[in-house]
């Protein structure tokens, strides 16, 4: 490694203040600190020792939490592909190969475009390249449908990073979750590519007879008008080509069509365990999102009204992207509520609004995306009340 260090040291001075490549200092710094943890020491005054943590490691921890979802997603894209074209006997290798061919380019595009923009902005704005995009760059592919056109991934990533983040001042300053901004951008800009039969990659193959690209959410939304029992329509779906795809256990496992990484509640829970054990994600938010959705589901069961409101509350926790959103999106430390009490409220309302949007707004069947974006905007307000309460306690004490 000494060779590499020497090479970096050789060019380093060119990037320092007053030298010819001064402008690109932060781009160089990002690469250098990626290769080598820096040799900087603490100031002579203040804390002389520092925790071994840094932002890179924290972000890497979140990425590792996403790995189960990613690996499962790659397999599932291949698996669903072969089911849809009627080749249920395809080997594991074939499934992984087809899945990887679909998913890996999306990841490359997402990281390439996003990091490119980060480097350009760091040079223009003269601020360090923040590691936040390491996570965002992985989240974006996981919430994309498997056959999303690559140019759309590029456009959405660029929009999200520029408008969603850099316009507010970069990492740490953004109001709404960057990855969800990308997803929401596609949703509203190219609705035809993000609804209907996009959740299974069919490619050059021919879909089998009886194939349908419906999702549990669209089935449930239909049920609201037709009045069919939702659970029955789930259980009978896929007869002939993908038997039992929407049974409760299968929904929990996530062996069903959907966005690349968000189908499996089980994988999201494994991710949640990693985040909670490492302290990278707030367990309060994760628990309260699930809690909020479940409570709202139960409440709607009591109210009744149509077939969707009568769907058992626990189904809400396994359909759509609720689990993925709760674990990886709602916990984003920049856009979530920042006070401990606020986190409970923030998470609970996300769960509540998700179910509300699902059930009462058939135009937007997936509620979690909009619920999180909405609560991102309201998180500062929740914090405002929590902080005010803290100030009030202090004031009351003074008069005693």
């Amino acid at each position, binding site marked *: 490694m000494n060779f590499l260090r020497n090479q970096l040291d050789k060019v380093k001075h060119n990037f320092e203040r007053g030298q010819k490549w001064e402008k690109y200092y932060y781009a160089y710094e990002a690469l250098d600190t990626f290769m080598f943890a820096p040799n900087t020491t603490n100031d002579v005054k203040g804390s002389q020792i520092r925790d071994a943590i*840094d932002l890179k490691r924290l972000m890497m*921890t979140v990425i590792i939490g996403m790995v189960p979802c990613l690996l499962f997603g790659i397999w599932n894209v291949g698996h669903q592909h072969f089911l849809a074209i009627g080749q249920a006997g395809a080997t594991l290798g074939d499934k992984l190969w087809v899945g990887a061919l679909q998913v890996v380019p999306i990841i490359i595009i997402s990281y390439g475009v996003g990091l490119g923009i980060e480097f350009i902005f760091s040079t223009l704005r003269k601020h360090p390249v923040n590691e936040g995009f390491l996570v965002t760059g992985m989240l974006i592919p996981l919430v994309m449908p498997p056959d999303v056109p690559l140019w759309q991934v590029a456009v959405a990533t660029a929009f999200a990073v520029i408008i969603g983040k850099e316009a507010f001042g970069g990492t740490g300053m953004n109001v709404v979750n960057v990855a969800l901004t990308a997803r929401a951008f596609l949703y509203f800009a190219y609705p035809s590519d993000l609804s209907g039969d996009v959740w299974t990659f069919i490619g050059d193959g021919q879909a089998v007879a009886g194939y349908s690209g419906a999702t549990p959410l669209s089935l449930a939304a239909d049920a609201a008008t037709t009045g069919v029992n939702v659970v029955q329509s789930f259980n009978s779906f896929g007869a002939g080509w993908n038997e039992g795809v929407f049974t409760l256990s299968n929904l929990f496992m996530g062996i069903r069509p959907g966005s690349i990484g968000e189908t499996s509640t089980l994988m999201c829970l494994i991710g949640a365990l990693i985040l909670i054990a490492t302290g990278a994600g707030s367990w309060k938010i994760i628990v309260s999102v699930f809690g909020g959705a479940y409570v709202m589901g139960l409440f709607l069961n009591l109210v009744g009204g149509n077939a969707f409101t009568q769907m058992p509350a626990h189904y809400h926790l396994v359909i759509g992207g609720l689990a993925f959103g709760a674990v990886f999106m709602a916990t984003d430390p*920049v856009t979530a509520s*920042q006070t401990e009490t606020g986190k409970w409220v923030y998470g609970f309302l996300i769960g509540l609004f998700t179910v509300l949007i699902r059930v009462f707004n058939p135009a937007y069947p997936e509620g979690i995306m909009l619920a999180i974006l909405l609560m991102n905007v309201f998180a500062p307000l929740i914090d405002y009340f929590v902080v005010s309460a803290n100030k009030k306690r202090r004031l009351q004490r003074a008069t005693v």
Partner: protein
Amino acid sequence: MGKFIKLKKGFTINLAGKAAPKVVEPEQPETFVIKPADFHGIYLPKVVIKEGDSVKAGTALFHDKKHENILFTSPVSGEIVEVKRGEKRKLLEIKILADKKVEFELFPKFSVSDIANLPVQEIKNQILKSGIWPSIVQRPYGVVADPTTTPKAIHISAFDTHPLAPDYNVLFKGQDQAFQVGVDVLKKLTSGAVHVNTHSTSEVSTVFSQVKGVEVNKFSGQHPAGCVGVQIHHIDPINKGDVVWTITPLGVIQIGKLFSQGIYDASKLVAIAGSEVKNPQYYKTYTGASVKKFLENNLNNDHVRVISGNPLTGTAIGKDGHLGFFDQQVSVIPEGDYYEFVGWITPGARKLSFHRSIGLFSFLSPNKERVVDTNTHGEPRAFVQTGIFEQVTPMDILPTHLLKSILAEDIDEMEALGIYEVIEEDLALCEFVDVSKHKVQEILREGLDLVQNS
């Protein structure tokens, strides 16, 4: 009756090289130094001696231009060899070449019954003249106490939870009587109580357990339980307009000796500790001592950082530097100016961390003593709220919001969020655990200066 307070949040940094409970009386260093930078709230130090003057222990060296009666005096007798000034003639330090045997300025002596009848003003004058007054620190702001005020209480923390902290049972052994006299004197300066705050689980020295006429409070929990600011927050919090004084046990003992023996005795025990010290133990010396002699032939290697005070809040002074005014601890830890290949992801239990992120396993063995160097382990980055500051702040204070209000220079907000209750040491752990490597203590001091001067 005192209170018993259990603190649940915090983090005790367990470093290798704690001082063994052994006291040595070494050959005394040649030079001693008093630095105005050790005190907050000095407007402009006015030097009253010249190079070449001889002084005794307790002879005035300088005073603050705003408070001419607060004298800063020499800890030892000898000759002034240097009045060191920096840019714009700012006073940096006054260096004294010490005599072999310390001679004292003599102050009036009092018996216990005399003290009870002494007028408050006379007590204050004696402390001011002796040069012990600057060890009384005023909250809010952590500045040298204003002698014209009467505090609502005086707090003494009787234990230290900082990394490599000296054991107070060793530091103050046998000083029971002086401590009692000091407390008796201090009681006359406050309208409220004198609080002595002890640790509930470790052995408490008789100096603190047998003292009469004070409230003895008990605390349990990890660092910063020993920080007096945290203790005040739980016993009798500081509100806007309140004045509270804090003083170290050493300061109390010095006041005791000033009244019972009539001298300013600046002798103190100092723990020379840290992973790079061959024989970590206690040395008897005086305030402002040069640390050079204590470290000679006593270091494991040459590439070290010598800190006056503890590694969380101390100041790097170099191998021939001098002890800070308040410090009873010198920490020697390895310098961390090395590159580490992909150091941001390499796993291991060797690196100390409060976090449990991927590859950081130190949380599995919390009782293991660790060697920690001065490397920053990362680069400064934007604030990312992970809620970690709140986990190491055992107070009803929101550190992130307070720091942000300081960065925004919003004085009303700082007041509302409780800036009066904290100084640097109370939030030093936030600086340690910060993912984004902010200089939390520096930011806080900027806020305190801003509020104080507004």
